[in-house]
């Protein structure tokens, strides 16, 4: 799990909405890429951006990425097995598994895709103050303040949630409901905490809503903002720059024969 870490860096100062939109654009682009070159470039560029623009040491980024690297690899292995059994082409084979080169390429780009998407998400979370995210959703995206602050209150509630889960588990154990018994029960664990957790969350929501309204949220007058987020020139440069880089990159890759659009169904 990763959380926002306060720092003063180029990346930290960027408007959350801009960051989010860029991530979405890039996600779409690399999802449409047949070959692994673009996801790989994205991965490397994001890494670089995190180090230089976000002032986060590369070691720390990679450490936080451990789990996701693992997941990406697990996913690739799984796809290898599934496709290998289908036996598309016969260029490569081990035991009962057969792959065509195309298979291997698309599996590799799938894995790279997952890894670079996770990396972007990670950078986003680490460099974005949730408060700013909500503010820019309200100010730049026209989200209503009630929704924005409701979401913020929910997010505020999360750290206590972990404690809450522990408390509920402990309370049930002490009162004689047993946990962690057998594989089946363990699988059901998320569901068993869910109901009490939802109840306490809803109760808390009720109280927060009362507190918010008793301080005037949602009254029919305009609202001012003490702190504001805005999209400034640097944000536009950042966005424009990123787009330019991608256009150029795709151009080069196409020229080098390493990029083709794929919509997920034109492989076979």
């Amino acid at each position: 799990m990763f959380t926002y870490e306060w720092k003063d860096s180029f990346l930290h100062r960027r408007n959350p909405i801009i960051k989010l939109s860029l991530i979405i654009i890039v996600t779409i682009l690399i999802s449409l890429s047949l070959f692994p070159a673009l996801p790989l470039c994205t991965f490397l560029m994001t890494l670089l951006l995190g180090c230089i623009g976000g002032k986060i040491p590369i070691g720390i980024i990679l450490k936080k990425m451990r789990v996701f690297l693992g997941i990406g690899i697990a996913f690739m292995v799984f796809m290898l097995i599934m496709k290998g059994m289908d036996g598309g082409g016969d260029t490569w084979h081990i035991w009962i598994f057969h792959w065509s080169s195309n298979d291997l390429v698309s599996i590799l780009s799938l894995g790279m895709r997952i890894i670079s998407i996770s990396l972007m998400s990670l950078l986003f979370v680490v460099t974005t103050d949730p408060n700013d995210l909500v503010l820019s959703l309200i100010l730049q995206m026209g989200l209503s303040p009630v929704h924005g602050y409701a979401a913020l209150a929910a997010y505020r509630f999360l750290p206590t949630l972990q404690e809450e889960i522990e408390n509920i588990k402990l309370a049930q154990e002490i009162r004689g409901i047993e946990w962690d018994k057998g594989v089946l029960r363990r699988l059901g664990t998320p569901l068993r905490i869910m109901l009490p957790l939802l109840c306490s969350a809803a109760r808390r929501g009720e109280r927060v809503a009362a507190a918010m309204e008793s301080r005037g949220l949602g009254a029919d007058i305009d609202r001012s903002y003490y702190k504001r987020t805005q999209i400034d020139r640097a944000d536009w440069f950042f966005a424009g720059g990123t787009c330019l880089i991608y256009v150029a990159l795709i151009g080069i890759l196409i020229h080098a024969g390493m990029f083709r659009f794929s919509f997920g169904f034109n492989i076979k």
Partner: protein
Amino acid sequence: MNLKWKTKEVVIVAMVAAVVGVVYTIMDYLYMPLSSLLGPVFMELTFGIYLLSASLPMYIVRKPGFALFGALVTAFVNLLMGSAYGIQLILAGTLQAVGMEIGYAVYKRYEGNMVNMTVGAVLGALCVLGRDCVVFGYLTLGAATFTGIVIVRLISAVVIGMLLTKGITAGLKKTGVLRGFKCAQV
């Protein structure tokens, strides 16, 4: 029909959605090893649970927009807590919420009956399937696997999704928080 949003509804839905987001994060980690063991067809069984982020808020409040709001809060929380699926979640959340919104908006508007729920669940499941095809290349898996996935996912969305939604709402109702909500009035 009063479809105006109240602060209380919005905040409670946000809180509930946040919890759902946390549960998803835990599930993501719990089920990850399983999914590589048992394969995607089996894992599709859990789709009904993942549909909860859109169906629960909508079923509780029954006003337009709540599926989307709930699903987005869940997705953001899931993202901010460091789920493995990253930004994908926001896409998936939006898609299934759109399906759900359509299900409630078109026929028997916002009654929260079987028709609303089933149509919503099916549309939601199909929307997400579209994403899976593009991003995770499901279509390349071969016809048999793909059909299996679609069937299991639809069943899970309708049956498990509906059971969970109703069960959780009933549980919440008993604690009295949902007094004044539409789901508690019928």
